């Protein structure tokens, strides 16, 4: 069959991972409508705006983890990098350092962790779970040590109220075209990293090492550099989320980003990113993070307890991964034909 004659929809559906992403989108719509029918407030514009804003954090974390998952690895240090970013930037700002310089220093620290992760996993072939478990503790330790094991004061105490407000508005409270800036930041980053993954050589190399690392090596893919790039993307996204959390609280919190690495895994796998590597698209991660946040939001709105919320989300994650494993092993196909 000639590819040129295919309709755009068929071509879209032919993209690997698109099926899972669309399924997640359909699931999202069903969940949203179901919650809306139970509680009309779910459909209110205020709620939608809040939903978009809180979804943004999960989207960024999801992008971070998806990049690493597609290479067939995992990054457990995401949450710690979020805390590091929040604490370093907040501490510096409380000391009166220019906010731009403060966030750049935080970025540098996150990038160092990303490079270390990449080298440990790519160069020294440490199991990614162990390597990033180590850097997770290191990152969290740094977040604690930055301000002598205390949360920071309000950032406005150092840089002044005006600059503090500017910082908070830019990352969290301000709006552009009626939508919170947080959402726009996440969407811009989504577009950049979507392009990087789907349209560039680096993106193909990321998929290649997740699909067949030995063949990738023999095809000239620099596994160390590519793995490091994936961990660097993770570091950048974590850094931004740290700044968002810092802006949200107006201070640095040592416990910021706790468990975020797992939220990232959840957002990715719900959207069809395979934890076994090689498959998944960021559109799926977008859907996954939206499903996650809609569930949390909807369950909140209908008054479900936190325990119930966690339980439901947990089941959805397991089902998504189970589906991936079952589909890969072709068990559905066998049953049909047997």
């Amino acid at each position, binding site marked *: 069959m000639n590819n040129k004659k295919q309709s755009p929809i068929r071509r879209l559906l032919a993209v690997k991972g698109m099926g899972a992403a669309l399924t997640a989108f359909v699931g999202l719509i069903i969940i949203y409508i179901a919650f809306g029918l139970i509680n009309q407030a779910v459909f209110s514009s205020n709620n939608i705006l809040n939903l978009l804003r809180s979804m943004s954090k999960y989207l960024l974390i999801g992008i971070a983890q998806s990049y690493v998952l597609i290479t067939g690895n995992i990054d457990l240090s995401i949450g710690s990098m979020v805390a590091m970013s929040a604490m370093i930037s907040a501490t510096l700002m409380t000391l009166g350092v220019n906010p731009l310089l403060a966030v750049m220093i935080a970025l540098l620290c996150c990038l160092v962790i990303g490079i270390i992760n990449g080298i440990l996993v790519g160069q020294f072939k440490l199991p990614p779970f162990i390597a990033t478990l180590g850097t997770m503790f290191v990152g969290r330790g740094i977040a604690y040590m930055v301000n002598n094991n205390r949360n920071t004061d309000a950032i406005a105490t150092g840089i002044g109220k005006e600059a503090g407000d500017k910082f908070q508005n830019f990352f969290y409270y301000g709006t552009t075209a009626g939508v919170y800036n947080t959402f726009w930041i996440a969407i811009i980053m989504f577009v950049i990293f979507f392009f990087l993954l789907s349209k560039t050589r680096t993106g193909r190399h990321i998929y290649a090492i997740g699909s067949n690392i030995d063949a*990738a090596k023999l*095809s*000239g893919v620099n596994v160390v550099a590519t793995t490091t790039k994936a961990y660097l993307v993770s570091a950048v996204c974590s850094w931004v989320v740290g700044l968002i959390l810092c802006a949200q609280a107006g201070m640095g919190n040592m416990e910021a980003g706790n468990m975020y690495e797992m939220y990232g895994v959840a957002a990715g796998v719900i959207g069809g990113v395979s934890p076994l590597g090689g498959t998944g698209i960021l559109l799926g991660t977008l859907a996954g993070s939206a499903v996650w946040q809609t569930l949390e939001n909807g369950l909140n709105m209908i008054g479900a307890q936190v325990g119930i919320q966690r339980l439901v989300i947990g089941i959805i994650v397991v089902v998504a991964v189970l589906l991936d494993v079952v589909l890969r092993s072709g068990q559905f196909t066998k049953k049909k034909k047997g």
Partner: protein
Amino acid sequence: MRQEVFRMERVTYIEKGIKRLEDFNLQIYQGEIMGLIPINAHGLQELLLLMQTNMPLYDGHIYYCGERINSWKNPRRCANRIGIIDANSRLVEHMTVTDNIFVLRQGFRQEVIQNKLLRKQLEPFMSDIEVDIVADAYVDRLSAFERVVVELLRAVVAGYRLIVLNEISTVINGEELAKLYEIIHHYGRRGFSFLYVSPHLEEIMEVCDRVALLSNGRIQKVAQGEEMKAEIVEGYTLEFDRMVRYHMENRNQAVWQKKEILSFSHVTGEVLQDFNMKVYEGECLVIQNLDNQVFQDILQVLYGDRKVKKGNCFISGKRVQLPASKEIAVIAAEPTKTMIFGELSYMDNLCMGLSRRVPGVWKRNMRESVRKEYGPVLGEEVFGMPVERLSEKQKYQMVYTRVLLQKPRVVVCVQPFKGADLAHRVFVWKMMEMLLDKGMSVVILTINLADSMSLADRLIRIGKDGIIQEINREDFGSLSITAPWLSLYRTE
């Protein structure tokens, strides 16, 4: 009357809607070494699967040691006591030889392991076959030959009456193969039966009592004795013979300069010591590894898993790193399994090597031009297919075209014929000839010479001490080994 050990009677086996075996009949007698030549691989894996486990049959019956173990009427989903030995180890690594042979055996009841007793139990088996393997050695530290022997002993100790040896010549070298034949004959005399699967008639002739030809999931012919060599069996390899003869004539007429392209200077790995070698432009060099550890050593360096301790690799006098250099392409063994990116599209698979030369390869116009150029050769339909659904031939074609797109100066093929049936061996051979025609040098890394000799211009045999023997094309006829196509050189 000879006692029958294994029989498949009118077996038809369907998998995913495709008839893998059709009206399949096979009989193996006690103490017999039965050969099996897959003319094409259709049904081979399924045959081995059915020998190991009793999958539901569409039709027919299977008997083993006088008992009906599987039937279309009432399938029993259980494993059979038939041993299979091939390139993939079925031993438990990080456990000792005695653990694998005795402790991990069904029916081993001892709670407290007495190593001394196990060592003693192993001794008569070892002296019987005149092999010396340390009983307490961890199996992951054994050589390939020792591993095969341990698997064989495990099957013997477990009381398996039928043992399948699948393409074992891709794992061990000629001398070890000769020793293995002695062991097989020894156990054959003791009443054990063997099914020896190999695409090479020469091997089958050397060790087997009878041979069966497998084609399209059926046994086409069973021959024995002199009949094996006769026109029926040879008929299947005639086309290949003709091709090789034509190629040899062309190579003899061709004149090429001995311009050095690739060289290894004093390369030292874990086992390999002070290795020097040169590859000339446009030549086909076969490197036969007589020591499996040396082979593994070379592979690790080649795949970039280990850096050389000492020495350098040069391309046209310029130092390069393996496998990062774009001037060298490596095609791993069984490329249809190892060199495929299952999750990526056909085009992405094809262009992976090209990305070494053209950074912007994922631009649409570049991809379109690749498609335009190679579409007529590869077939337009493959571009829309998921790579896992491609046929074996299409997969081979994809991997070799990927290398062609990369335009390296040297292509290293690791055991290129491993796992390929006769039809695919012809195709792989053609693909390598295509690379040679494009002016690339082809280096074939192999353990057993087999088909590689049909393309070779030069042969290097290496062991632990480096190069043991270097033979040019004109002297191939003097080689005192059994390998296909050598007869052609002898009659030149």
